[in-house]
């Protein structure tokens, strides 16, 4: 069956994030002074097939560790859900 994984790739805490800082600055200058911090990361929406949830979980875990995140500076977490045909049409 088809699965949808929303993978969040985040910069490790403590690593400088100039993009996040720039966005925070932009927000403050637009009047959102209460913005204390912004961290920028990647959002990857994967559509793929796997026999069952366990297999799907394992696949995503592997995709993250092998390619999607670089452990030197990133971490990854994700949400997995069974994929509706409708969603496929949209995503493709």
């Amino acid at each position, binding site marked *: 069956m088809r699965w949808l994984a929303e993978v969040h790739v985040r910069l490790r805490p403590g*690593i400088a994030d*100039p993009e996040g800082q*720039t966005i925070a600055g932009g927000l403050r200058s637009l009047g959102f002074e209460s913005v204390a911090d912004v961290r920028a990361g990647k959002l990857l929406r994967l559509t793929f097939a796997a026999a069952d949830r366990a297999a799907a979980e394992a696949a995503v875990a592997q995709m993250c560790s092998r*390619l999607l995140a*670089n452990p*030197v500076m990133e971490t990854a977490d994700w949400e997995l859900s069974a994929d509706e045909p409708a969603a496929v049409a949209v995503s493709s």
Partner: protein
Amino acid sequence: MSRSPRVAVLVFPGTWSERDFAHVAGLLGWEARLLWHAELDLGDADAVVLPGGFAHGDHLRTGAIARFSPVMRAVEAFAAAGGPVLGSCNGFQILTEAGILPGVLLRNDHLEFRCDWQPLRVERSAGPWLGELAEGETIRLPISHGEGRYYADDAVLDELEATGRVVLRYADPDGRVVPDANPNGSLRSIAGIVNERGNVLGLMPHPERAAEAEVGGTDGLRILRALDAWLVAQPAAAERRL
């Protein structure tokens, strides 16, 4: 070794400076071979160059997909056996993603692409690529990248320093390593490093763009030309077959 060096210049989908390396190889009388990333075998190469560019469009992370190219297995073995490897710009990024060199190159701290001539302080003058440079001298090479901010954790950085593996630092025209001279926010102003054995050099600047006075300088030629002398001093290198 009397014959001219055989150099494999790798070509990944989206890299471009292989063409400029090939041009300089011509000036140096090298036998340069452009090798497509899908190849499995480096042949009888004496040295390997990973060029600059945007392999796979720099999508996801620079070098992230290229490191899995079939040819990279041969490069890993070649490097591990002490073969001379040079990775410039995208080539450096691929070497770090592949774990052949430590650390990673992140987006420039000012978030902009930057193309300019950049003074560099030479921290070490040994190995296949740095032999013609003098420790402490200031050279000029072009930089041209959007993601050149070198990052590694403190332990790695300290070890690099302690073992003399930081070979090039961004500097001002007088060779002073000062924050204002750092074009991308690299930690400790690191522009180039080598591996433990010193046979693998990764640097963000473009030596192939500084090989003729007509285009602005020749310090890059001194880096690439050093290979000839080094190979002569290493008979083993000529025999090496992988």
